[in-house]
């Protein structure tokens, strides 16, 4: 047994790759922005589906940060590197520019310290990618016109029982990014997995942004 042989396979065997799960729409867009072999940090990585995909089909070196016990267990079952921590308490354990890409998928809207986490992403990574539901989708506006808080597949919570404390629209995000000195290098406004080109602010359900520190 040589030292080399001990290293865990960075890529999964071909057989395993063939049964790759289909990724959520925003995750597919995120994966498309991540280079092969990249060093990736996935914040709020959940059960590790994106991390496993990046490891197995992109040879990425991936670490996840997650708070929920059950999700940690799922990540362990997938053989992933995962660190149990609260994103709100910061990413102090990671030095500046440690990662090529830092991902925050469908979590930004649930963060209390929105600005702090974006700043930390820009510090720890060469680029950041966030995805979030578009609060400005026309169906949400219709719900509001009808006097109700919107509930939709991308925001499936009742107002009194939601983890989402900082919902926003793509335009809102762009303004905040500008204020934080983040340069947006990629934008995908999606509905049903496809980019929306006409009236994306109203018609897109999911927003995915890529940014770099100035």
């Amino acid at each position, binding site marked *: *047994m040589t*030292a080399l042989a*001990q*290293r*865990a396979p960075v890529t999964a065997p071909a057989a395993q790759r063939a049964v790759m799960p289909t990724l959520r729409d925003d995750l597919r867009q995120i994966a498309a922005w991540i280079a092969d072999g990249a060093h990736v940090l996935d914040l709020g990585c959940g059960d590790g589906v994106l991390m496993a995909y990046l490891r197995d089909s992109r040879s990425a*070196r991936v*670490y996840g940060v997650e708070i929920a*016990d059950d999700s*940690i*267990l799922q*990540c*362990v*079952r997938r*053989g*992933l*590197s*995962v*660190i*149990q*921590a609260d994103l709100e308490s910061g990413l102090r*354990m*990671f*030095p500046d520019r*440690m990662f090529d890409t830092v991902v925050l998928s469908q979590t930004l809207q649930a963060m209390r310290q929105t600005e702090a986490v974006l700043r930390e992403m820009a510090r720890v990574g060469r680029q950041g990618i966030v995805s979030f539901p578009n609060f400005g989708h026309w169906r949400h506006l219709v719900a509001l016109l009808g006097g109700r808080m919107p509930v939709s597949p991308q925001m499936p919570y009742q107002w009194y029982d939601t983890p989402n404390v900082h919902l926003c629209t793509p335009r809102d995000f762009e303004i905040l990014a500008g204020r934080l000195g983040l340069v947006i290098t990629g934008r995908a406004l999606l509905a049903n997995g496809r980019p929306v080109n006409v009236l994306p602010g109203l018609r897109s359900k999911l927003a995915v942004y890529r940014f770099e520190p100035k």
Partner: protein
Amino acid sequence: MRFEEPLELASGARIADYELRYETYGSLNASRDNAVLICHALNASHHVAGRTADDPNGIGWWDNMVGPGRPVDTRRFFVIGVNNLGSCFGSTGPMSINPATGRPYGASFPVVTVEDWVNAQARLADCLGIGRFAAVMGGSLGAMQALSWTIQYPERIGHCVAIATTPRLSAQNIAFNDVARTAIRSDPDFHGGDYYAKGVVPRRGLRVARMIGHITYLSDDDMAEKFGRLLRTPDYEFGYEVEFEVESYLRHQGDKFSEYFDANTYLLITRALDYFDPARAYGGDLVQALAPAQAHFLLVSFTTDWRFSPARAREIVEALVMNGRQVVYAEIDAPHGHDAFLQDDERYHRLVAAYFDNIAAGLAR
């Protein structure tokens, strides 16, 4: 097992020949790659799991973790428990006869370090024909040995499973150890460590040492829950005998401990704890210290462990991430303080089980 070849120690001293007591569970597979070494902490031994034939009450110290169907499943893994050098459960230690003098070593037994233990364990592995461990695992001081394995013998360890540990003791940790040692050394029955010949045991000192240690193993919440301010007496008695439940509990723990544990071993093991600091040789840089490591890591800490708090474990995680090592770190919200690593906790055990499932799957490939 007896070793004739002298062991060079970190202190510069050497032990001419020595014995290591060990226990095994399960069986080594044909490719000899399913061995797991379990390292013990302060007061435990090679007897990790199951019951011994001669003592039906002697359940292994990590029996809830190791055994058939347990997280470290002995139907799949060949598990080795080894009693460390300097301990008092069968391996050569201060109680043993020094062949040079024909008398017990006592105070003359050399101070050993975590690194020395790992070297001795590696020799045991050689003798058992184990080139590489699938995993080395331990809690607390045991986890320090597992960490040290990844630095001293990086090519001989696949996975390091380190529970409730720290990269080095804090001043507070060392202070508690010093109080414990002072209690032992100031017991009139200690006789400078050579109490064996006098036919006495510094039991009072050992008892106090254990009482202090035990407080640091429990959390404030845990003690509040277990004892609160409960009295054993109907009311205050305005004296100094046992009145509170917690006093009774601690004294009982102290008494029990002083019956079976050796005072010199207590000094020696707490000193090994104090000295453990792999980053010391690198000006305190743990990243550099862990650079040789090739293993994959599972680290677990417990939220209420104030002895080796989660913040200390995170230092290790940080250094491992900096070195690009694969690492799983879990922070278990358990009420039992440092002792949680020995307790049944479903989340903790499920996680370790899942981790070992992966190790087993990796072997099968």
